[in-house]
């Protein structure tokens, strides 16, 4: 029973769970109304992608990629190439989160809310008010 579960997980199961996590992250970005939850779900998507990369580099009888002794055989160590790429990806995602949060602060200062429906309503209101003011001062300017 354990070997059949192992065989199923190795072929398709873990990829399915990773895809489920990624889809939930994307659904969270679309469905959530609050901008801060969208940023958190963006980080969830990033974890799914990094896990997928690290999955591809595993070897069955392998140990961590630090050499134990001088004579090194390639079949005993896990592939270090995806680890290197993902290391920098994690650190860069910190910078991306920082930029997103600073944009969030500017939105809060200008509109006073960070829920998406209230934000769209306020933007529509301001657009209507600007259009009315422009027509009052310069009538017939659009033609």
């Amino acid at each position: 029973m354990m070997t059949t579960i192992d065989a199923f997980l190795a072929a398709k199961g873990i990829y399915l769970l990773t895809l489920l996590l990624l889809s939930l992250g994307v659904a969270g970005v679309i469905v959530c109304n609050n901008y801060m939850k969208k940023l958190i779900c963006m980080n969830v998507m990033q974890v799914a992608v990094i896990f997928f990369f690290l999955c591809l580099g595993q070897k069955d009888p392998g140990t961590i990629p630090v050499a134990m002794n001088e004579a090194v055989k390639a079949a005993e160590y896990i592939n270090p190439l995806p680890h290197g790429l993902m290391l920098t990806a994690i650190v860069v995602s910190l910078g991306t989160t920082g930029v997103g949060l600073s944009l969030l602060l500017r939105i809060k200062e200008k509109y006073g809310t960070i829920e998406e429906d209230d934000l769209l309503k306020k933007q529509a209101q301001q657009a209507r008010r600007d259009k009315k003011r422009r027509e009052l001062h310069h009538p017939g300017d659009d033609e």
Partner: protein
Amino acid sequence: MRRAITIILLIVSITVPFIAFDVLPAIGDPASAPNTHVSDYYIEHAIEECNSPNMVTAVIVDYRAFDTMFETTVMFLAGLSVVIILANRPKSRIPAPASLKRLRDTSGNPVYRTVNKDVMISIIEPVILIYAMYVLFHGEISLGGGFQAGALIGMTYLLDIMVVGRKRPIFNLPKDNSAALAGIGPFIYALTGFISIIGGGLYLEYNKMPLPVHQAELHSLGITAVEIGVTIGVAGTIITILNALMERISFDDDND
């Protein structure tokens, strides 16, 4: 409406690739396509060519050093964009919302000295900084490297500014100065590449640096110099983002 469409797309996007998962390699297969070709060479020649038992460090700082240079530049650019976005001067900080004011404890002085807050921080912080230096210089031999050390230095600053407040932090860096400090990191990295051009090699080729040391030491020196650049870049960016965000928010124990 939006939620209904999202749920339908979710179910479709999970079930359709489930049929096509046979194309992907089985997990743990030593003969799959990503595990052959060039990573075998990196594993077997990491010690004799790069003088570092940690293969991940050998890959990111020696074999693929050009990519890491641009990753450090991207970190610096992220810090710079935070400074530029938050460059306007509002009349006051963003006030805390009304629901938080009810929770504030208005009896007694909120700023008080306890043993935990001010004394233990001055004992813990030097230990974390020494650990960051250890992680930086031992990156080749054991786990670690430049990115982790830079993040640890940033975490020290974060701890200090959270606990002690704005009165006397550990080093006084306004956000413009720390953005300039974060720029020194990629500069050191790029400078190390030019030294090997002087010796007659390619860019970032550590074998041909014209330094009067033994041949096996050149790689170690090159890797250490480059990792110092990465550390300064990452630490500077974290300090910049922290300072830029904390200038706009009003806290409980503010006196202004």
